[in-house]
């Protein structure tokens, strides 16, 4: 399988300014060293609670906001450092569908004008050819060519999201970033849009980066899933593996919170206590330790790196540190340089 998009160590800090002269009062660590790869014709689900930086990653990839550090590799170009004109050309291949179907369409433009905007930006086509392509794009997302002359306010939420998709698809991109594309829709409409997304993926060989907080939606659409907590990926695995064998305590808690539509089925809920710590200058400890039911001494001292459990499953948690219970040896330091004292805290779990 070919690699489509690779994100290396992406960092985005938002400075917090206060007062008349805008003195910096620290930084919000929205995204803190995130790396992942999106394979061709696959969907990578990015899941996490509000404010964990999921959408920021999407915006950083498209350079809608400028990342603080890191690399985004796409078609042999690093999008983070690409000059404006190269970036503009690459945007043909890289599209986004937003969460809010009401805000993402200009209320003063007709559907035809909205959908043909990418054509005007990138290609020099005749008006009749543009009209054809708009009609084609509309029918691809299940709308009628007659809809082209209407205005966005004449459509429902689901239809508007289809219009957004038609606009994203008209240039035949390779990657679409779906930023919570269904969370503003009714559940019945959600299913329609999700099925449409899967159908288009099959037909057009699209790759999706699918951002959502809805575990059921993520499970439905994704091939791989990355779980985020406070700006970092804590677990990444194949979708089946992740849902059947979640390893990180946060993932376990998230999955246990999904309601099961069977009143007889007994399930154990993991209730997290406390709040998400402030993303303002976080401590070097594991970010989840204040809420983790399995927190250990080491969790308060050092953040665990993302480690591979098998070829398909990565997790960032000290619980799965194979070297942890081992006695102090020089070899440990070589494999785990990021954890000072990692070999001395072999306490009971």
């Amino acid at each position, binding site marked *: 399988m070919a690699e489509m998009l690779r994100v290396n160590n992406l960092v985005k800090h938002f400075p917090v300014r206060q007062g008349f002269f805008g003195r910096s009062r620290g930084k919000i660590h929205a995204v803190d060293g995130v790396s992942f790869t999106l394979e061709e014709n696959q969907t990578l689900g990015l899941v996490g609670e509000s404010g964990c930086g999921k959408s920021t990653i999407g915006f950083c990839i498209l350079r*809608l906001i400028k990342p603080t550090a890191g690399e985004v590799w796409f078609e042999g170009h690093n999008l983070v450092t690409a000059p404006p004109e190269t970036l503009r*050309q690459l945007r043909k291949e890289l599209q986004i569908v*937003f969460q809010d179907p009401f805000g*993402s369409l200009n*209320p003063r433009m007709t559907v035809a004008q909205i959908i043909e905007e990418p054509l005007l930006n990138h290609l020099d086509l005749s008006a009749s050819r543009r009209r054809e392509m708009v009609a084609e794009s509309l029918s691809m997302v299940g709308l009628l060519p007659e809809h082209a002359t209407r205005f966005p306010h004449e459509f429902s939420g689901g239809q508007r999201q289809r219009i957004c998709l038609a606009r994203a698809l008209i240039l035949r991109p390779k990657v679409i970033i779906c930023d919570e594309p269904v969370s503003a829709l009714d559940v019945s409409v959600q299913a329609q849009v999700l099925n449409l997304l899967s159908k288009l993926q099959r037909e057009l060989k699209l790759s999706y980066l699918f951002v959502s907080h809805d575990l059921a939606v993520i499970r439905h659409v994704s091939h791989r899933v990355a779980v985020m907590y406070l700006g970092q990926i804590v677990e990444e695995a194949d979708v089946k593996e992740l849902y059947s064998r979640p390893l990180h305590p946060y993932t376990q808690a998230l999955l246990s919170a999904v309601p099961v539509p069977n009143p007889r089925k007994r399930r154990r809920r993991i209730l997290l206590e406390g709040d998400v710590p402030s993303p303002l200058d976080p401590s070097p400890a594991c970010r989840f330790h204040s809420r983790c039911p399995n927190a250990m001494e080491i969790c308060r001292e050092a953040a665990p790196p993302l480690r591979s459990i098998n070829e398909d499953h990565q997790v960032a948690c000290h619980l799965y540190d194979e070297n942890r219970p081992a006695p102090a040896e020089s070899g440990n330091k070589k494999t785990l340089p990021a954890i000072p004292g990692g070999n001395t805290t072999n306490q009971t779990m």
Partner: protein
Amino acid sequence: MIRDLIHSPTLRLWQDTFRELKRSRSAIVGGVLILLIVGTSIAFPLFYRVDPLAQDLMSRLMPPVWQSGGSWAHPLGTDNLGRDVLSRILYGSRVSLMVGFSSVLVAEIMGILLGLFSGYYGGKIDTVIMRVADIFMAYPFMLLTISVIAVLGNSILNLILVLGISDWVTYARTVRGSVLALKEKEFVRAAHSLGTRNRTILRRHIFPNILSPMLVLGTVRVANIIIWESGLSFLGMGVPPPRPTWGRMLAEGRLYITDAWWLVTLPGLAIMMTILAINLFGDGLRDALDPRLRNV
């Protein structure tokens, strides 16, 4: 070609606006009044040709026709120099409307341009423009106008420029606020991700969406400028005499207010009616321009 034009979406938006406008009672009343006022100010020489400057010292302070002592020769009476009040009000309407609309145009163009750049590009451009705006806000408008008029002399053109320039801040601030809000809208972000250039985003996505609030703000400010012009004329800083304006009529008439009520009341009523008409129309326009308020 013609069919394309008829079916052009922009035209359809304006047709929709017009249809909505016809539904709003306040817009109809305001619109009809404005048409009447503007129409009269243009067309009155066709049916009422009395020189507003001709003095008739024999018939000074003559009351309106319906009061004892009035005559049809001067339907709304005469002032302290025996000049015809109706004719002066009619001529005054030209000055007031011209100054009002032209100043708003000057202010709108300046304010929209500066506000767009300030809000969209942000950073240093924003800081400089907004600090200059702060200076303008902090500087008393009357003092500014008086000093500029004192230096450049008072002519209608100077007055229009001064009133326009001293009012750009209102527009620039409003535009900047709208642009900041629009910039975060997803359709603007979407345009970025589609590879639309900044200039095009400003023209295609931002400008059309600030135009209707600007139109509404403009109608309200026309009323304000007319009052300012009256105030300046009242202070003797407005349009140079002997050209009659509503403000100067108020200023001159106030000396005789106990003997001749009509000298202040009638131009005052003219100002009031004009402003009321413009405000009513602006109100209806605001509702009509918002496609979200429409029930299609």
